[in-house]
């Protein structure tokens, strides 16, 4: 009796909830976006939205501004995070995960709360924070995304075998050469995943801009502004273009990750 009542799942069936979720909230919306992107307000098929995006100075300017913010944020994150991750990974301190947690701790605090606090600090320093929109946005983004850079770097640096750096020293390399020719190339997978995790969200996260009184649009806010005026078609096209950009970047970085360590040297 009990045997018959017992529910038996095979592994594939365990995927059903996720598959349902995926279809309902990812694939369907995507199809809707594609539909809107290639139609006009009367529902007829058109390429106008696409042409509009690449001919309008306003949208192109936004794209450039987004890329600029994202690239600068990512670079600053990388420059600050690398030494921290390196020192943490190399330290002999037994409780180093406590230190690591301190760097990741801000992630546990509510996002708006953090940015509000940052706003207060920046106001205290600059008095009129609206005067430096680009700078403040970069500071805000860097503050927000730093842990996403530290963690993958820390992981890849702590995996690095100490005997490799010793071998390099043994073969005549000084500290700088050891870093350039062994440590840096071997941490490329960490750099790539860190960059991916910071670059992509910082192109679209317009909440930071809004809260820091930056009135310039980035990609995220541009989409928001179209949707706010019920212009589903243009908004969808921009979303689609952004999606393709992200897709291309991910594809490119994945290629580095796959051939990973062997490719490390050639791109540096």
């Amino acid at each position: 009796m009990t045997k018959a009542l017992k529910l038996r799942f095979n592994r594939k069936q365990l995927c059903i909830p996720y598959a349902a979720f995926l279809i309902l909230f990812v694939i369907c919306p995507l199809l809707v976006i594609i539909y809107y992107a290639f139609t006009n307000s009367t529902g007829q098929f058109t390429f106008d939205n696409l042409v509009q995006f690449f001919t309008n100075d306003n949208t192109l300017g936004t794209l450039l501004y987004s890329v600029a913010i994202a690239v600068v944020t990512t670079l600053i994150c990388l420059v600050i995070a690398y030494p921290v991750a390196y020192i943490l990974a190399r330290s002999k301190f037994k409780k180093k995960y406590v230190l690591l947690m301190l760097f990741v701790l801000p992630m546990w605090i509510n996002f708006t709360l953090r940015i509000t606090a940052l706003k207060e600090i920046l106001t205290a320093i600059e008095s009129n924070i609206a005067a430096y929109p680009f700078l403040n946005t970069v500071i805000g983004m860097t503050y927000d995304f730093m842990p996403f850079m530290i963690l993958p770097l820390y992981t890849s640096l702590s995996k690095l075998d100490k005997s490799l750096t010793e071998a390099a020293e043994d073969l005549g390399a000084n500290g700088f050469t050891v870093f350039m020719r062994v440590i840096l190339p071997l941490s490329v997978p960490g750099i790539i995943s860190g960059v991916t995790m910071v670059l992509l969200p910082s192109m679209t996260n317009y909440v930071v801009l809004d809260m820091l009184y930056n009135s310039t649009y980035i990609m995220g806010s541009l989409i928001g502004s179209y949707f706010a005026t019920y212009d589903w078609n243009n908004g969808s096209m921009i979303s689609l273009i952004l999606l393709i950009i992200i897709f291309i970047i991910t594809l490119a970085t994945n290629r580095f990750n796959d051939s990973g360590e062997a490719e490390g040297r050639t791109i540096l």
Partner: protein
Amino acid sequence: MSDTNTIIELKNVCKSFDDTIAVENFNLSVQKGEFVTFLGPSGCGKTTTLRMIAGFDLPTSGQILLNGEDISNLPPNKRPVNTVFQRYALFPHLNVYENIAFGLRLKKTEYTATDKKGNTVVKKGRLTRRDIDEKVKHVLDIVDLEGFEKRSVSTLSGGQQQRVAIARAIVNEPEILLLDEPLGALDLKMRKEMQIELKEMHRRLGITFIYVTHDQEEALTMSDKIVVINDGEIQQIGSPTDIYNEPINTFVADFIGESNIFNGMMTGKLKVKFCGAEFDCLDDYEINQYVDVVVRPEDIIICKPGEGQLKGKVLSTVFKGVHYEITVEVGRFELVIQSTAYAAPDSVIGMRIEPDGIHIMEKVYTENKYDGVITKNNTVKFGDGEFECDVTQLYPGSHLDEEGYLITASGEKIDLTDVEVTAEVGFADITMSDEKDAGGVDGSIISMIYKGDHYRYIVRTEENEEDYVLACPDLWNIGDKVSLIIPSDKIKLTLKPAAGEKK
């Protein structure tokens, strides 16, 4: 003092990490072109010593001289030595060629060139691409990996990675090649092949090899000189034959090859008694001196019962390919014999040992002797522990009064608190218990040697690393945590001269 043939000399080198001493008072000089092996059990300090020569660890005190120059504090990249690492440590992001060329690309060499005025000048510069190509090709040829230049190191087998690691080191033409258990990760057959190849490479290259291993057979096969290390200290330095035939103490005898070790006593000029029989021997010690006797299993010759010095019953016979390993019971002792002759189990055989098969050595440990102090409660504290003891033995004819004060024979009252004494305990008087805190002190077993009818153990305490030597017929394991029980009447106390005046 350093003659021209000495390439590296270690003088009183010590190394400690935090509280633990890894290497103690290491003195060694290595000749140019020698194949020297550091041999010892794991954790004995052999790798630490190698790392100090390479420059990865700096000695706490002492000097390392290379060609007479002090290099003790030089960083590894400034030393003309190269290392083959235990796990190879090949760079995974570089191919075979780039791994080997790594050192060459960093190297600056002197070359002669002609300047504008036509004078020849010595210039320093990096090696040219062609030079590097040539050298890499040459070492790949030496290690038998021609044509592997473009291969990624992760696609190579263990043995091939090993060869790349060796090639990467020797391509720099180091004055000394350091090898840290390089064959440890290979399977037996591969290891044997590589041993022969390494030895051949050493012969061809003519550079000094310093080799670290815990495998005694490997050490005997390859070395010109073996340095046996235990517990951070050199036990014996010598050629493989010296070390095998004339071990200096029971540790070396036990570690190198198989051996029967017994307690013995000198009974006359060149005569020693052990296993209940008297033997002629070649080592001259004082009469009545207690000694350790080592007999190699292959030096015991089986003969008819009644002949030879010993007679015993065969307990077991195991066929080992070339020989039989025969365990024999002689009285309460157990002997192991390796012989090509067969002896049936349960049969009675006679055994003969020739004088040159008997190795006699002075006992390293003759007693447990510690500095101690008497506590308030008339117990004694020594060797990291506190024990009940009989304090009346300090003054003949004395006794204790009700308050615990000592009354001497003449009626004098003495407070013994904090009086310094010397405490002695016999080997057989200490018993071990696996119950924590059962005895006066806890420690772990760091050494054990079978002596025919009992084991000799050394137990080391954690706090101050005090050693207790004890004899026990039961089998324990190295690393076992034990508590040591010493009966109060077995602790022999004597007053220290200075303490005797304190009243």
